[in-house]
């Protein structure tokens, strides 16, 4: 059990108008998402994403809050998050930064020039997969609403590159203990982030950031990793990102922001991406010194080496002076992480981890139903064979990697709804961990075991009371004697209830307005 979540920036395009402005389209898409959600949506609370930083300067503890606010929560225990008052300001929203906080606890909004879905906080990788699939369903529903409202087609892509040099991210977030030395964490986690791509890569046609060289590689993001550790996310991207916004009690927690990962259309890679990384973090928190033997000598070139090696046989140098393949490093991490499995969800991750590593070691193509880059490579290979040139001497020349049909297949692979990955899934060629009814439920409802449940409860049941919501706050707007907005602070991501919000969200007494 470890609080985690996934953020996905979708590629966006109007198939009929390639020059259409992506910021405007993204903004209209978020507006369409709000229309689709009906009344069950809220604005984003920009009032302060980290209340413990006290950026607003007037936070009060619950004990000091106005008595008017206490009437709905007679059972308040004094330990839960505090409530503070905020003066009313105008309700203007920047149209280029529209947000929709949804009844499943997620945030759908405009980030840079892309629509982004930030899933709700979950406690395990299985739930991460489910609410990630819910995000795709929500994005598709918003796109349908957009087409209905605007009268224009819209296509969304769950990938990370356009093949012309642009990359956009799919980020993972993990709550980790603040007392773990960050430099040690970076050193020990890096070998995992560098080598897990053999299981989690989505595959990419083109080598180099702009696809300067022809060919196929395992990961979408690998060629954009240019530093070992750093703060940036849009330039000189690091393997380990140091952004430090915990959205939780800063004295206890850090939020590790992982930017190296690919967007996945397959569910097994998403499960492994989240689940294996969470387990390695547990080993790091426990100070497991066996991780020392896996430390890489030169991580940035190693990311590229692993991604470009379709044989899975390339070795990368270790700090110890020895070398190891990605599969060997993964196998060693699996052995270490077995000791840190704490619940059924962790054991599910271990089982898939072992199964996929076994398949990749035996014959990568035997993992085609689970590993996205392998499935993509298989389909591309079949296309290359189909249109191969047969010479008079009987020899066969496969379609060149530079052929536009291969690049098009790669890009169209991840299109939401009717992309080739979706069609492969529909044809029964992809392992599925969720099912339609579970996804439909996750579209409408939040996970029950994190603070997302609190945020979502009010949006689902009493949306008219919500002025705005953020990761660690819900702003309540209701008639009171003090006349101000009430900011309920959700500092603990593990807390799935809050007395003030639970009281407000309970069924209205008969006769109440």
């Amino acid at each position, binding site marked *: 059990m470890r609080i985690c979540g996934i953020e996905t*920036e979708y*590629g*966006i*395009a109007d198939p009929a108008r*390639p020059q259409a402005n*992506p*910021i405007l389209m993204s903004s209209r898409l978020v507006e369409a998402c709000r229309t689709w959600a009906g009344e069950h949506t809220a604005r984003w609370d920009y009032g302060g994403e980290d209340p413990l930083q006290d950026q607003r300067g007037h936070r009060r503890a619950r004990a000091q809050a106005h008595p008017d606010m206490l009437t709905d929560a007679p059972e308040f225990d004094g330990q839960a998050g505090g409530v503070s008052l905020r003066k009313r300001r105008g309700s203007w929203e920047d149209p280029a930064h529209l947000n929709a906080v949804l009844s499943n606890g997620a945030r759908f909004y405009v*980030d*840079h*020039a*892309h629509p982004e879905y930030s899933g709700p906080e979950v406690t395990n990788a299985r739930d991460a997969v489910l609410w990630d699939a819910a995000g795709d369903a929500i994005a598709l529903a918003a796109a349908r609403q957009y087409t209905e409202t605007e009268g224009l087609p819209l296509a969304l892509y769950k990938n990370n590159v*356009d093949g*012309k040099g*642009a*990359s*956009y*991210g799919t980020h993972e977030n993990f709550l980790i203990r603040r007392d773990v030395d960050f430099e040690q964490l970076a050193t020990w986690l890096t070998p995992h982030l560098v080598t897990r791509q053999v299981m989690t890569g989505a595959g990419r046609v083109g080598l180099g950031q702009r696809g300067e060289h022809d060919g196929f590689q395992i990961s979408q993001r690998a060629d954009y990793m240019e530093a070992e550790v750093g703060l940036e996310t*849009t330039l000189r991207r690091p393997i380990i990102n140091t952004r430090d916004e915990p959205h939780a009690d800063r004295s206890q927690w850090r939020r590790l922001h992982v*930017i190296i990962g690919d967007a996945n259309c397959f569910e097994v890679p998403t499960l492994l991406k989240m689940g294996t990384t969470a387990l390695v973090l547990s080993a790091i928190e426990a100070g497991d010194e066996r991780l020392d*033997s*896996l430390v890489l000598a030169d991580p940035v070139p190693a990311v590229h080496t692993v991604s470009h090696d*379709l*044989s*899975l*046989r390339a070795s990368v140098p270790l700090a*110890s002076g*020895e070398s*190891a393949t990605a*599969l*060997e490093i993964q*196998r*060693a991490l699996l*052995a270490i992480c077995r000791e840190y499995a704490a619940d059924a969800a962790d054991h599910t991750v271990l089982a898939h981890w072992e199964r996929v590593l076994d398949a990749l*070691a*035996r*014959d*990568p*193509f*035997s993992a*085609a139903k689970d590993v996205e880059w392998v499935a993509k*490579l*298989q*389909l591309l*290979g*079949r*296309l290359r064979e*189909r249109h191969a040139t047969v010479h008079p001497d009987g020899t066969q020349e496969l379609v060149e990697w530079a052929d*536009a*049909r291969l*690049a*098009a*297949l790669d*890009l*169209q692979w991840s299109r939401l709804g009717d992309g*080739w990955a979706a*069609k*492969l899934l529909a*044809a*029964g*060629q992809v392992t599925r961990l969720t099912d339609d009814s579970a996804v439909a439920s996750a579209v409408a409802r939040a996970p029950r075991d994190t603070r997302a449940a609190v945020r979502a409860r009010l949006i689902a049941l009493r949306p008219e009371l919500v002025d705005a919501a953020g990761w660690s706050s819900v702003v309540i707007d209701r008639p009171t004697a003090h006349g101000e907005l009430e900011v309920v602070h959700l500092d603990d991501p593990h807390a799935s209830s809050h007395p003030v919000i639970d009281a407000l969200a309970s069924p209205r007494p008969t006769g109440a307005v």
Partner: protein
Amino acid sequence: MPQTHASGQPYEDDAPEPAVAPAKAENTDALDSLLDEIDDSLQVNAEQFVRSFVQKGGQ
């Protein structure tokens, strides 16, 4: 030093990338009909599609 999978590798040393695996019977039909659909779609507009797929950078 991890040495758990030094053997059983599927490819020869001089092979830079795996050849396409012989399709298994169970998925041949499914892939073939999907490839038919891909062919129909890509014969028409592959180049134009690739050229016009331009995204702004993000995070």
